[in-house]
């Protein structure tokens, strides 16, 4: 009996480890390939099979990317401004909304939640043409504002959905105690709920920031030049006659560096944020 259950536990454990290994492999290999090819010459990279001889490695791609620094710099700046504002506004509006949906008796809370979820089911391509028309009538095409508005429209529901889960997991005793102590709903939120939700708020903010930072499709349609974000600038290394893979990958490496750094530096807080939501829930 004991032997069989030990084998069962071992099997379960192995399955989990194999699953995680496959997932990690799928997630990491493209990144490694990007990093590797950013240091390789075009000929070596396009050869079949790729030529991994030490002589194929070079820093030229990065030099080239930095020589077109004006475009890339503008792209980074645009991405940063758009992601920062999107994240800030999404949290400022999303956190109170999530709290209201988690704790207050909001009329029609369930339909509202369904609608929030439903917004996530639309493929972007379905709405992009009407969106383009509306935005061009409003004369917002190729501005940072149009991207902030559009990114909010899909970040806000996610922020509300994630934070609502966290707020639901807070033991209601705390808020009851604060109510007995004389706090209004707004005071409970501001003085009790927000201060103890720093980790989940942080995790959600990083998530929203990365979503905005990485967005490509809407930025492609709704910007032309001055509001172009980093992913668009990078894609332009794929020229009309030739795709300069090495430079593209060098630019991409630079583009993901800030979010990777963000995730690495704050990984403890992010993990804690998500763990909080799970354990108490």
């Amino acid at each position: 009996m004991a032997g069989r259950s030990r084998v069962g536990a071992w099997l379960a454990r192995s399955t989990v480890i194999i699953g995680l290994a496959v997932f990690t492999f799928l997630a990491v290999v493209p990144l490694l390939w990007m990093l590797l090819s950013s240091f390789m010459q075009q000929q070596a990279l396009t050869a079949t099979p790729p030529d991994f001889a030490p002589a194929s490695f070079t820093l030229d791609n990065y030099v080239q990317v930095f020589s077109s620094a004006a475009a890339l710099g503008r792209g980074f700046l645009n991405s940063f401004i758009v992601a920062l504002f999107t994240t800030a506004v999404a949290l400022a509006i999303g956190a109170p909304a999530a709290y209201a949906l988690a704790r207050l008796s909001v009329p029609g809370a369930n339909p509202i939640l369904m609608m929030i979820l439903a917004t996530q089911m639309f493929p972007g391509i379905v709405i992009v043409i009407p969106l383009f028309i509306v935005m061009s009538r409003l004369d917002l095409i190729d501005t940072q504002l149009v991207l902030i508005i559009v990114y909010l429209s899909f970040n806000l529901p996610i922020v509300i959905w994630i934070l609502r889960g966290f707020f639901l997991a807070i033991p209601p005793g705390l808020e009851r105690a604060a109510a007995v102590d004389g706090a209004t709903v707004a005071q409970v939120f501001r003085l009790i709920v927000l201060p103890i939700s720093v980790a989940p708020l942080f995790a959600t903010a990083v998530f929203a920031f990365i979503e905005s930072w990485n967005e490509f499709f809407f930025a492609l349609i709704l910007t032309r030049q001055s509001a172009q974000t980093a992913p668009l600038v990078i894609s332009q290394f794929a020229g009309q006659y030739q795709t300069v893979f090495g430079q593209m990958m060098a630019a991409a490496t630079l583009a993901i560096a800030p979010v990777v750094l963000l995730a690495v530096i704050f990984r403890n807080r992010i993990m804690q944020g998500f763990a909080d939501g799970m354990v108490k829930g």
Partner: protein
Amino acid sequence: MADVELQAVAKTFGKVAVCKGVDLRVEDGEFVTLLGPSGCGKTTTLNLIAGLEDATEGDIRIGGQRVNHLTPFERDVAMVFQNYALYPHMTVAENIGFTLRLRRMGRTEIARRVSAVAESLELGPVLERLPAQLSGGQQQRVALGRAIVREPRVFLFDEPFSNLDAGLRLKMRAEVKELHQRLRVTSIFVTHDQEEALSLSDRIAVMRDGRIEQYGTPADIYTRPVSRYVARFIGSPPLDFLPGKIATEEQRTVFRMGALAVPIDVRTVGELGNSPLELGVRPEHVILGAEGAPVTVRLVQPVGPATFVTVAWEGGSVVARVPGMASLVPGARLHVSVDPRHVMLFDAASGRRLSI
């Protein structure tokens, strides 16, 4: 300071009726316990008094004023919660002073009041610590301090000791009782621990299924329970119920249970003679010795000041309380009888106690 009155208070959650018409009157300065098993509606009743839930029906009055529509704060009640509910990001001083800060009291006045309360609860040395850095007993005292600092009209306690270990529980019980004797603030205390209820209360309301089954002094509840439910809930170990019937033997009215008969004083033997009855007897009124029905010892549980001895009885068992550390062993044969002055008769069908 104020009295609290509930009149036909009902609360339903969706289709589930949790309180089904609770009537309760707590006098000014009184300490009243709501006692009952989980799910009997005692915590909901407390939340209704606090204003954390809205009553579906009925009136709640504090100090003569109807408070149904008032917020917890406006009712001027303070509550101590089961899991302490301390604000984890605030120091002890901030936790205690939070309610004063919300009233826009001056810093120096807050500091003065907080330190006075902390002094009385021996929390002075830990005022700048966070709740997570405190022991369970200290956390509980901070929760008390948070309630005291407001000088409320009514204290509400929701099973405040259930997370503490046995020793600390006894200590906190004594502290709460002392606190009540000192401040004399009307207090309502919810617990499922009958011993806690007996030791703390001026009066106890035993709740059952959303209603108050009996409301009286600890002595009343212990010696004159209205029903089998109340009788069984109070006292540890609980009393035993022995089925039998009323008979007249040698010109005396007795309650006969197999080999054992207890003389009782019943006026209307005729009526009672027909319905199935049970005799309730507490362990301290079961007498083991040379007289009575022969029995065999099954279990001996010494607890220090007394020993609880379980003896086999008519297919079931009876527990007797023997003073001191009794040297009985399982299998021993002796005789059992009951003290006729302390027996209670219950109607087996309805569970009500009969007045004899």
